[in-house]
Protein backbone atom coordinates (compact mmCIF):
# COMPACT_ATOMS: atom_id res chain seq x y z
CA UNK A 1 0.00 0.00 0.00
CA UNK A 2 1.32 3.41 -0.96
CA UNK A 3 0.49 6.05 1.63
CA UNK A 4 0.67 9.74 0.74
CA UNK A 5 0.04 12.67 3.03
CA UNK A 6 -1.20 16.22 2.47
CA UNK A 7 -1.40 18.97 5.09
CA UNK A 8 -4.10 21.65 4.88
CA UNK A 9 -3.72 24.96 6.67
CA UNK A 10 -5.17 28.47 6.59
CA UNK A 11 -7.08 31.01 8.65
CA UNK A 12 -10.29 30.37 10.55
CA UNK A 13 -13.21 29.74 8.16
CA UNK A 14 -10.96 29.28 5.14
CA UNK A 15 -12.55 25.84 4.65
CA UNK A 16 -10.02 23.30 5.92
CA UNK A 17 -12.50 21.07 7.75
CA UNK A 18 -14.97 21.21 4.86
CA UNK A 19 -12.24 20.38 2.32
CA UNK A 20 -11.19 17.27 4.25
CA UNK A 21 -14.80 16.21 4.80
CA UNK A 22 -15.45 16.61 1.08
CA UNK A 23 -12.63 14.23 0.22
CA UNK A 24 -12.54 11.64 2.94
CA UNK A 25 -13.73 8.09 2.45
CA UNK A 26 -13.82 7.55 6.18
CA UNK A 27 -15.74 9.42 8.84
CA UNK A 28 -13.40 12.33 9.48
CA UNK A 29 -11.79 12.93 12.81
CA UNK A 30 -12.46 16.53 13.68
CA UNK A 31 -11.77 18.09 17.00
CA UNK A 32 -14.33 20.85 16.91
CA UNK A 33 -15.25 22.80 20.00
CA UNK A 34 -17.79 25.55 20.54
CA UNK A 35 -16.06 28.65 19.23
CA UNK A 36 -15.33 31.08 22.00
CA UNK A 37 -13.85 33.94 20.06
CA UNK A 38 -14.71 36.08 17.12
CA UNK A 39 -15.01 33.12 14.79
CA UNK A 40 -18.53 32.68 16.14
CA UNK A 41 -19.51 35.41 13.72
CA UNK A 42 -19.29 32.83 11.02
CA UNK A 43 -19.45 29.41 12.56
CA UNK A 44 -20.55 27.62 15.65
CA UNK A 45 -17.62 25.24 15.92
CA UNK A 46 -13.94 25.69 15.37
CA UNK A 47 -11.16 23.13 15.07
CA UNK A 48 -8.95 23.07 18.13
CA UNK A 49 -6.58 20.20 17.41
CA UNK A 50 -6.69 18.74 13.92
CA UNK A 51 -8.81 17.36 11.12
CA UNK A 52 -8.01 13.99 9.67
CA UNK A 53 -9.42 12.01 6.79
CA UNK A 54 -8.36 9.34 4.31
CA UNK A 55 -8.99 9.26 0.59
CA UNK A 56 -8.62 5.96 -1.28
CA UNK A 57 -7.11 6.53 -4.71
CA UNK A 58 -6.79 2.89 -5.75
CA UNK A 59 -6.65 -0.52 -4.11
CA UNK A 60 -3.02 0.01 -3.25
CA UNK A 61 -2.87 3.77 -2.82
CA UNK A 62 -4.38 6.26 -0.41
CA UNK A 63 -3.90 9.80 0.83
CA UNK A 64 -3.96 10.83 4.49
CA UNK A 65 -5.41 14.32 4.84
CA UNK A 66 -4.43 16.45 7.83
CA UNK A 67 -5.87 19.86 8.69
CA UNK A 68 -4.47 22.36 11.18
CA UNK A 69 -6.65 24.42 13.50
CA UNK A 70 -7.05 27.95 12.14
CA UNK A 71 -6.76 30.00 15.28
CA UNK A 72 -3.30 31.22 16.18
CA UNK A 73 -3.79 30.30 19.85
CA UNK A 74 -3.82 26.62 18.82
CA UNK A 75 -0.61 27.07 16.84
CA UNK A 76 1.24 24.53 18.99
CA UNK A 77 -0.68 21.99 16.88
CA UNK A 78 0.73 23.46 13.67
CA UNK A 79 4.19 22.52 14.83
CA UNK A 80 3.10 19.07 15.95
CA UNK A 81 1.41 18.38 12.61
CA UNK A 82 4.30 19.73 10.55
CA UNK A 83 7.00 17.95 12.55
CA UNK A 84 5.28 14.71 13.43
CA UNK A 85 2.02 13.56 11.84
CA UNK A 86 2.61 15.19 8.45
CA UNK A 87 6.38 15.63 8.47
CA UNK A 88 6.60 13.51 5.31
CA UNK A 89 3.66 15.07 3.47
CA UNK A 90 3.97 15.57 -0.26
CA UNK A 91 2.60 19.09 -0.12
CA UNK A 92 1.06 21.89 1.91
CA UNK A 93 -2.29 23.34 0.87
CA UNK A 94 -2.78 26.88 2.12
CA UNK A 95 -6.48 27.70 1.96
CA UNK A 96 -7.08 31.43 1.65
CA UNK A 97 -10.51 32.98 2.21
CA UNK A 98 -10.97 35.61 -0.53
CA UNK A 99 -13.53 37.52 1.53
CA UNK A 100 -10.88 38.49 4.08
CA UNK A 101 -10.09 42.17 4.12
CA UNK A 102 -6.50 41.45 3.14
CA UNK A 103 -6.10 37.83 1.97
CA UNK A 104 -2.43 38.50 1.14
CA UNK A 105 -1.74 39.22 4.80
CA UNK A 106 -2.88 35.64 5.49
CA UNK A 107 -0.63 34.33 2.72
CA UNK A 108 2.36 36.18 4.16
CA UNK A 109 1.54 35.07 7.71
CA UNK A 110 1.22 31.35 6.93
CA UNK A 111 4.14 31.33 4.51
CA UNK A 112 6.28 32.71 7.32
CA UNK A 113 4.86 30.30 9.93
CA UNK A 114 5.43 27.28 7.66
CA UNK A 115 8.58 28.69 5.99
CA UNK A 116 10.84 25.73 6.70
CA UNK A 117 8.08 23.22 5.87
CA UNK A 118 7.35 24.87 2.51
CA UNK A 119 10.99 24.82 1.47
CA UNK A 120 10.93 21.03 1.42
CA UNK A 121 7.71 20.35 -0.46
CA UNK A 122 5.15 21.73 -2.87
CA UNK A 123 2.85 24.56 -1.87
CA UNK A 124 -0.63 25.04 -3.28
CA UNK A 125 -2.49 28.23 -2.53
CA UNK A 126 -6.15 27.28 -2.75
CA UNK A 127 -8.40 30.34 -2.81
CA UNK A 128 -11.90 29.84 -1.37
CA UNK A 129 -15.10 31.94 -1.20
CA UNK A 130 -14.31 33.53 -4.58
CA UNK A 131 -17.97 33.04 -5.53
CA UNK A 132 -18.71 35.74 -2.93
CA UNK A 133 -15.67 37.91 -3.51
CA UNK A 134 -13.91 37.38 -6.84
CA UNK A 135 -11.13 39.87 -6.07
CA UNK A 136 -8.22 39.57 -5.68
CA UNK A 137 -8.00 37.38 -8.76
CA UNK A 138 -5.63 34.73 -10.05
CA UNK A 139 -3.04 37.19 -11.39
CA UNK A 140 -3.01 39.11 -8.11
CA UNK A 141 -2.12 35.90 -6.25
CA UNK A 142 0.58 35.13 -8.78
CA UNK A 143 2.04 38.60 -8.21
CA UNK A 144 1.89 38.02 -4.44
CA UNK A 145 3.78 34.71 -4.58
CA UNK A 146 6.32 36.22 -6.98
CA UNK A 147 6.89 39.04 -4.54
CA UNK A 148 7.43 36.51 -1.75
CA UNK A 149 9.86 34.57 -3.91
CA UNK A 150 7.75 31.42 -3.72
CA UNK A 151 7.29 28.51 -6.05
CA UNK A 152 3.60 27.77 -5.64
CA UNK A 153 0.52 26.78 -7.59
CA UNK A 154 -2.60 28.92 -7.27
CA UNK A 155 -6.01 27.30 -7.58
CA UNK A 156 -9.49 28.72 -7.03
CA UNK A 157 -11.66 26.08 -5.39
CA UNK A 158 -15.09 25.57 -3.87
CA UNK A 159 -14.32 23.29 -0.95
CA UNK A 160 -17.97 22.27 -0.70
CA UNK A 161 -17.58 20.46 -3.99
CA UNK A 162 -15.58 17.22 -3.61
CA UNK A 163 -14.52 17.25 -7.25
CA UNK A 164 -12.84 20.64 -7.06
CA UNK A 165 -11.02 19.71 -3.85
CA UNK A 166 -9.92 16.51 -5.53
CA UNK A 167 -8.25 18.62 -8.22
CA UNK A 168 -5.84 19.86 -5.52
CA UNK A 169 -4.98 16.27 -4.59
CA UNK A 170 -4.53 15.40 -8.26
CA UNK A 171 -2.19 18.37 -8.72
CA UNK A 172 -0.01 17.08 -5.89
CA UNK A 173 -0.19 13.32 -6.38
CA UNK A 174 -0.40 12.80 -10.15
CA UNK A 175 3.34 13.27 -10.57
CA UNK A 176 4.04 10.24 -8.37
CA UNK A 177 0.90 8.17 -9.09
CA UNK A 178 0.47 7.73 -12.82
CA UNK A 179 -2.22 5.07 -12.86
CA UNK A 180 -4.99 6.74 -10.86
CA UNK A 181 -8.40 7.10 -12.50
CA UNK A 182 -9.17 10.57 -11.14
CA UNK A 183 -12.58 10.82 -12.80
CA UNK A 184 -13.68 7.61 -11.09
CA UNK A 185 -12.38 8.79 -7.70
CA UNK A 186 -14.24 12.08 -8.21
CA UNK A 187 -17.55 10.36 -8.98
CA UNK A 188 -17.17 8.06 -5.97
CA UNK A 189 -16.54 10.78 -3.42
CA UNK A 190 -19.30 12.95 -4.89
CA UNK A 191 -21.74 10.05 -4.45
CA UNK A 192 -20.41 9.29 -1.02
CA UNK A 193 -19.90 12.76 0.47
CA UNK A 194 -22.27 14.93 -1.56
CA UNK A 195 -22.17 18.68 -1.74
CA UNK A 196 -21.94 20.49 1.58
CA UNK A 197 -24.44 23.31 1.99
CA UNK A 198 -23.81 24.57 5.49
CA UNK A 199 -20.48 26.23 4.90
CA UNK A 200 -21.38 29.88 5.22
CA UNK A 201 -24.07 29.91 7.88
CA UNK A 202 -23.40 32.20 10.82
CA UNK A 203 -24.84 30.86 14.06
CA UNK A 204 -24.41 33.54 16.67
CA UNK A 205 -22.00 36.26 17.60
CA UNK A 206 -20.33 37.87 20.58
CA UNK A 207 -18.83 41.25 21.30
CA UNK A 208 -15.52 42.31 19.87
CA UNK A 209 -14.20 42.87 23.37
CA UNK A 210 -15.06 39.35 24.55
CA UNK A 211 -13.50 37.96 21.41
CA UNK A 212 -10.34 40.01 21.96
CA UNK A 213 -10.01 38.74 25.52
CA UNK A 214 -9.95 35.16 24.22
CA UNK A 215 -6.84 35.83 22.15
CA UNK A 216 -3.53 34.69 23.54
CA UNK A 217 -1.69 37.38 25.52
CA UNK A 218 -4.42 40.03 25.30
CA UNK A 219 -5.01 41.75 28.65
CA UNK A 220 -7.43 44.48 27.66
CA UNK A 221 -9.20 45.97 24.66
CA UNK A 222 -10.95 49.14 23.58
CA UNK A 223 -13.15 49.64 20.50
CA UNK A 224 -13.22 53.15 19.05
CA UNK A 225 -15.76 54.50 16.55
CA UNK A 226 -15.41 56.87 13.62
CA UNK A 227 -15.46 59.98 15.82
CA UNK A 228 -12.87 58.48 18.16
CA UNK A 229 -15.64 57.79 20.65
CA UNK A 230 -15.21 54.78 22.94
CA UNK A 231 -17.73 52.13 21.84
CA UNK A 232 -16.59 49.68 24.50
CA UNK A 233 -13.55 49.22 26.69
CA UNK A 234 -12.22 47.14 29.55
CA UNK A 235 -8.88 48.96 29.85
CA UNK A 236 -8.97 50.56 33.28
CA UNK A 237 -5.72 52.55 33.34
CA UNK A 238 -6.71 56.04 32.21
CA UNK A 239 -3.15 56.87 31.14
CA UNK A 240 -3.13 53.91 28.75
CA UNK A 241 -6.55 54.92 27.41
CA UNK A 242 -5.29 58.48 26.84
CA UNK A 243 -2.19 57.24 25.04
CA UNK A 244 -4.18 54.87 22.83
CA UNK A 245 -6.61 57.65 21.94
CA UNK A 246 -3.68 59.91 21.02
CA UNK A 247 -2.40 57.16 18.72
CA UNK A 248 -5.79 56.94 17.01
CA UNK A 249 -5.84 60.72 16.67
CA UNK A 250 -2.44 60.56 14.99
CA UNK A 251 -3.61 57.92 12.52
CA UNK A 252 -6.66 60.07 11.63
CA UNK A 253 -4.42 63.09 11.11
CA UNK A 254 -2.15 61.12 8.78
CA UNK A 255 -5.19 59.68 6.97
CA UNK A 256 -6.15 63.22 5.97
CA UNK A 257 -2.77 63.51 4.30
CA UNK A 258 -2.73 59.94 3.03
CA UNK A 259 -1.40 61.02 -0.36
CA UNK A 260 1.93 61.38 1.43
CA UNK A 261 2.75 57.71 2.00
CA UNK A 262 -0.54 55.91 2.68
CA UNK A 263 -2.88 55.37 5.62
CA UNK A 264 -1.87 54.20 9.06
CA UNK A 265 -3.02 50.66 9.74
CA UNK A 266 -1.42 50.29 13.15
CA UNK A 267 0.71 51.92 15.81
CA UNK A 268 2.35 49.89 18.56
CA UNK A 269 4.32 51.12 21.58
CA UNK A 270 6.30 48.98 23.96
CA UNK A 271 9.25 48.76 26.29
CA UNK A 272 11.39 46.20 28.08
CA UNK A 273 9.26 46.03 31.23
CA UNK A 274 5.80 47.23 30.21
CA UNK A 275 2.71 45.86 28.55
CA UNK A 276 2.45 46.52 24.83
CA UNK A 277 -0.17 49.05 23.71
CA UNK A 278 -1.39 48.91 20.14
CA UNK A 279 -3.96 50.62 17.95
CA UNK A 280 -5.28 49.07 14.73
CA UNK A 281 -7.40 51.30 12.51
CA UNK A 282 -9.82 50.01 9.95
CA UNK A 283 -11.97 52.49 8.00
CA UNK A 284 -14.48 53.83 10.51
CA UNK A 285 -13.31 51.95 13.59
CA UNK A 286 -10.20 51.19 15.58
CA UNK A 287 -9.27 48.39 17.93
CA UNK A 288 -6.88 49.17 20.76
CA UNK A 289 -5.18 46.34 22.62
CA UNK A 290 -3.17 46.02 25.77
CA UNK A 291 -1.09 42.85 25.57
CA UNK A 292 1.71 40.95 27.21
CA UNK A 293 5.17 41.93 26.02
CA UNK A 294 6.03 38.50 24.67
CA UNK A 295 3.35 38.56 21.98
CA UNK A 296 5.31 39.29 18.79
CA UNK A 297 4.28 42.06 16.41
CA UNK A 298 3.30 39.71 13.55
CA UNK A 299 1.07 37.66 15.86
CA UNK A 300 -0.49 40.79 17.34
CA UNK A 301 -1.25 42.10 13.85
CA UNK A 302 -2.77 38.80 12.79
CA UNK A 303 -4.94 38.67 15.91
CA UNK A 304 -6.17 42.25 15.39
CA UNK A 305 -6.80 41.58 11.72
CA UNK A 306 -8.95 38.55 12.61
CA UNK A 307 -10.87 40.56 15.18
CA UNK A 308 -11.51 43.58 12.97
CA UNK A 309 -12.43 41.38 10.04
CA UNK A 310 -15.55 40.12 11.75
CA UNK A 311 -16.50 43.26 13.60
CA UNK A 312 -17.58 44.73 10.30
CA UNK A 313 -20.96 44.17 8.75
CA UNK A 314 -20.88 40.98 6.76
CA UNK A 315 -24.28 41.15 5.09
CA UNK A 316 -23.52 38.37 2.66
CA UNK A 317 -23.27 35.95 5.56
CA UNK A 318 -26.82 36.57 6.76
Amino acid at each position, binding site marked *: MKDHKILFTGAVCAGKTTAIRSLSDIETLDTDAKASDVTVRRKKNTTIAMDYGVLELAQDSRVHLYGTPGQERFSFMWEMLANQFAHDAIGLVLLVDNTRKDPFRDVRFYVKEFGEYIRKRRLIIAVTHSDIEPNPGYNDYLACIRELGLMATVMFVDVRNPKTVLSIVEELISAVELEINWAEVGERILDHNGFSLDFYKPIYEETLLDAAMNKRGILGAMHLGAEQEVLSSNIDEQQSVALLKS*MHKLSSAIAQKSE*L*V*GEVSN*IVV*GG*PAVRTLSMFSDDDQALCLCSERDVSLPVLKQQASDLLQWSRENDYLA
Partner: protein
Amino acid sequence: MTIWHEMAEQRLLQYGCVLDNGEVKHSSFPSEYRKHLAVARQSLIYIFKNVGKHVDGYDEAHMEVGDTHFSGYLIDENRILVCLCAAETNQHDVRAFIESNKQRFSS
Protein backbone atom coordinates in the same frame (compact mmCIF):
# COMPACT_ATOMS: atom_id res chain seq x y z
CA MET B 1 31.32 50.48 7.03
CA THR B 2 28.71 52.79 8.63
CA ILE B 3 26.31 51.70 11.28
CA TRP B 4 23.52 51.94 8.69
CA HIS B 5 25.29 49.54 6.35
CA GLU B 6 25.90 47.20 9.26
CA MET B 7 22.25 47.24 10.29
CA ALA B 8 21.06 46.87 6.70
CA GLU B 9 23.37 43.93 6.21
CA GLN B 10 21.88 42.25 9.27
CA ARG B 11 18.39 42.98 7.87
CA LEU B 12 17.52 45.19 10.81
CA LEU B 13 16.51 48.15 8.64
CA GLN B 14 16.51 49.55 5.14
CA TYR B 15 17.19 53.17 6.04
CA GLY B 16 17.76 54.89 9.34
CA CYS B 17 18.42 58.21 10.98
CA VAL B 18 18.84 59.74 14.40
CA LEU B 19 16.59 62.57 15.53
CA ASP B 20 18.38 64.83 17.96
CA ASN B 21 15.88 67.12 19.70
CA GLY B 22 13.62 66.56 16.71
CA GLU B 23 16.26 67.47 14.12
CA VAL B 24 17.44 64.90 11.57
CA LYS B 25 21.05 63.84 12.13
CA HIS B 26 23.07 61.01 10.62
CA SER B 27 20.51 59.90 8.04
CA SER B 28 20.80 57.16 5.43
CA PHE B 29 17.35 57.91 3.94
CA PRO B 30 17.73 58.60 0.21
CA SER B 31 16.10 61.73 -1.20
CA GLU B 32 13.22 59.80 -2.77
CA TYR B 33 12.19 58.77 0.75
CA ARG B 34 12.03 62.29 2.16
CA LYS B 35 8.21 62.14 2.46
CA HIS B 36 8.48 58.89 4.41
CA LEU B 37 11.09 60.40 6.67
CA ALA B 38 8.94 63.51 7.23
CA VAL B 39 5.95 61.35 8.25
CA ALA B 40 8.08 59.12 10.47
CA ARG B 41 9.76 62.09 12.12
CA GLN B 42 6.55 63.96 12.92
CA SER B 43 4.72 60.81 14.01
CA LEU B 44 7.45 59.50 16.29
CA ILE B 45 8.00 62.89 17.92
CA TYR B 46 4.24 63.06 18.56
CA ILE B 47 4.08 59.50 19.91
CA PHE B 48 7.01 59.85 22.30
CA LYS B 49 5.74 63.25 23.45
CA ASN B 50 2.42 61.61 24.36
CA VAL B 51 4.15 58.61 25.89
CA GLY B 52 6.12 60.97 28.13
CA LYS B 53 2.93 62.79 29.09
CA HIS B 54 0.92 59.69 30.03
CA VAL B 55 3.02 56.65 30.92
CA ASP B 56 6.51 55.54 31.88
CA GLY B 57 8.69 52.75 30.55
CA TYR B 58 7.78 52.95 26.85
CA ASP B 59 10.81 53.43 24.62
CA GLU B 60 9.88 51.89 21.29
CA ALA B 61 7.14 52.59 18.76
CA HIS B 62 6.17 50.87 15.52
CA MET B 63 3.91 52.13 12.76
CA GLU B 64 2.59 50.63 9.57
CA VAL B 65 1.77 53.39 7.08
CA GLY B 66 0.67 52.16 3.68
CA ASP B 67 3.26 49.56 2.72
CA THR B 68 5.89 51.08 4.95
CA HIS B 69 6.97 50.03 8.43
CA PHE B 70 8.59 52.58 10.69
CA SER B 71 10.11 51.90 14.07
CA GLY B 72 11.38 54.41 16.56
CA TYR B 73 13.60 53.72 19.55
CA LEU B 74 14.37 56.22 22.29
CA ILE B 75 18.14 56.21 22.64
CA ASP B 76 18.01 58.76 25.44
CA GLU B 77 15.70 61.60 26.39
CA ASN B 78 16.76 63.75 23.42
CA ARG B 79 17.42 61.25 20.69
CA ILE B 80 15.26 58.87 18.71
CA LEU B 81 16.52 56.24 16.30
CA VAL B 82 14.18 56.08 13.27
CA CYS B 83 14.17 52.90 11.19
CA LEU B 84 12.38 52.16 7.95
CA CYS B 85 12.23 48.39 7.89
CA ALA B 86 10.62 45.35 6.33
CA ALA B 87 7.41 43.99 7.87
CA GLU B 88 9.09 40.80 8.99
CA THR B 89 12.02 42.51 10.75
CA ASN B 90 12.68 40.95 14.13
CA GLN B 91 12.38 43.91 16.49
CA HIS B 92 14.01 41.98 19.34
CA ASP B 93 17.16 41.83 17.20
CA VAL B 94 16.94 45.56 16.48
CA ARG B 95 16.61 46.30 20.18
CA ALA B 96 19.55 44.04 21.01
CA PHE B 97 21.68 45.77 18.37
CA ILE B 98 20.81 49.20 19.78
CA GLU B 99 21.60 48.11 23.32
CA SER B 100 25.05 46.93 22.36
CA ASN B 101 25.82 49.89 20.07
CA LYS B 102 24.29 52.79 21.98
CA GLN B 103 27.53 54.75 22.05
CA ARG B 104 27.89 54.65 18.28
CA PHE B 105 24.55 56.40 17.77
CA SER B 106 25.74 59.39 19.77
CA SER B 107 28.97 59.90 17.87
